[in-house]
């Protein structure tokens, strides 16, 4: 698929501006900045409107005409009610546990296999490689019916296992890792092999330390995907205490009814963790998404 054209998994740093752009401020740059600001404001509207609503009292949030600045003042009531109800923290915890497990398992099994496909000349390697790449085509929605049946048969519905197990297979990530390992000079490993080091030791002590950027990129991509996945966890769990954040949020509208301020407070609280993570790791996330993104979708 798309991945085949992804020649170099590690792209140049996006932060570096073009040298010729360091020239003095031109009218074009001024106009460009104004236009970009307008688009950015447009893009912030849904956040801003959710924030304003969440800071209103329920009665004012549901009153016409709409107010942009609440007459009865801002209040944190909606956030307090949502957090006191306790579901949101619980769902966040479920998301954290399952996404972390999915990311860890995916990284380990994909890196091991990607390494073997890159370095070890074993019988059936080409065939395995073809099957792995070919399977990238399979759209996850095709799997939901048989997977649900399987989880039912294994008695795993309404457990973390049901959420985690089907999400650890990322053939595209195996391929991305393999491409990265291909670029590491072989001499390093051959010297160690001569000295009698085992494959595992070479992988852990030589290859992995050199692979931190790609491992981070894959981890970020897989984690965000797992954290936000809706369809499969929605099918795999019913028990309110086991829902992940996205699935739990889906139930609040029916549970709270027309509590608009609380709905928006919940949505903002749910958005908060990833936005904070993004603010801290902006460079890595952007790099990770642009390097693995083409392969992963």
């Amino acid at each position: 698929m798309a991945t085949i054209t992804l020649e170099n998994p590690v792209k140049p740093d996006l932060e570096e501006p073009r040298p010729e752009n360091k020239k003095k401020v031109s009218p074009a740059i001024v106009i460009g900045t104004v236009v970009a600001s307008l688009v950015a404001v447009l893009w912030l509207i849904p956040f801003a409107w959710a924030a304003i609503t969440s800071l209103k009292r329920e009665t004012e949030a549901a009153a016409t005409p709409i107010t942009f600045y609440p007459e009865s003042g801002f209040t944190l009531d909606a956030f307090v009610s949502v957090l006191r109800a306790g579901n949101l923290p619980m769902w966040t915890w479920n998301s954290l546990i399952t996404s972390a497990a999915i990311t860890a398992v995916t990284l380990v099994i994909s890196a091991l296999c990607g390494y073997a496909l890159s370095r070890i000349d074993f019988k059936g390697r080409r065939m395995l490689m073809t099957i792995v790449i070919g399977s990238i085509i399979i759209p996850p929605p095709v799997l939901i019916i048989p997977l649900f049946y399987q989880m039912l048969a294994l008695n795993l519905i309404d457990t973390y296992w049901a959420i985690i197990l089907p999400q650890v297979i990322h053939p595209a990530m195996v391929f991305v890792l393999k491409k990265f390992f291909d670029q590491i000079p072989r001499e390093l490993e051959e010297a160690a092999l001569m000295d009698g080091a085992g494959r595992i030791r070479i992988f852990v002590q030589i290859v992995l330390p050199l692979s931190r950027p790609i491992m981070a990129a894959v981890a970020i991509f897989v984690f965000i995907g797992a954290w936000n996945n809706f369809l499969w966890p929605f099918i795999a769990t019913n028990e309110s205490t086991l829902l992940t954040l996205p699935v739990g949020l889906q139930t609040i509208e029916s549970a709270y009814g027309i509590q608009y301020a609380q709905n928006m407070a919940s949505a903002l609280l749910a958005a908060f963790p990833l936005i904070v993570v993004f603010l801290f790791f902006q460079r890595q996330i952007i790099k990770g998404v642009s390097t693995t993104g083409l392969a992963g979708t």
Partner: protein
Amino acid sequence: MSSSVIVRGSVASRANNLHGWAFCAPFIFFFLAFLVWPIIHGLIMSFTGQTLTGANSGFVGFANYAEAFSDPDMWSSLGNTLYFTVASTIPLVLVALAMAALVNMGLPAQWLWRLSFFAPFLLASTVVSLFFTWMYNPQLGLFNELLGFVGIGPIPWLNDPSVAMWTIVIATVWWTVGFNFLLYLAAMQNVPAQHYEAASLDGAGRWRQFFSITLPQLGPTTVLIVILQILASLKVFDQIYQITGGGPGGATRSIVQYVFETGFTGYRLGYSAAISFIFFALILLISIGQIFSNRNRSA
């Protein structure tokens, strides 16, 4: 076997076989258990009358497929999905390109633009749907309020079958355009600076440079983004299910939602599996088409 990489003796290759498969074993285990087996089982299921209640009328041959091809709901869901795919792919590619071209001009505060345009992509679908459902609200919604200021009458975002799909498209563009924007931006920053230097020496302005240097260089990236976007849009489910529930009157129901509903609301797993394989065939056709077009280009 001290030098298994170099010596191609039988001992070394046997060790390599062992090591290779051992390294891949954990992945293969999960791959077989939770990807290969479900696909095979799904295919088998699609030829049976399997239901969620456990009743199974056994092997029914191609009956499920025959039923699907004469099922108006299947066709309307498929039609809605294709409509959404076209209606969402065009803005998702063009807006992303425009955003990236803008930011790549060398604007100040690069991080700010990337944050603003890309941040929505990090949100779960449910968060996006809560935001937009609230803004689309008929009485209390922000959209109709703002449109009222400029004299545009209230738009029945959620209740008019001819509007509802665009309601979904707008939310989708806001949510995911940042991803294509990043891919475009990365591609633009890979265009060698010498190209631009030569062009500006020749007196080419920014527009000229964009259309005669940047855009042609972005050809392969654009093909990739379009294909990936088509494949992603065809799988649409979350935001439709959450914002309109597929309504009004099935006007926005996607094929994945129809698979979901026949399986989990209608309890007909066999029939639902058959529909999902029809959907799979469609995806496969597009993917194969892309692979061939790639091959022709590189040949």
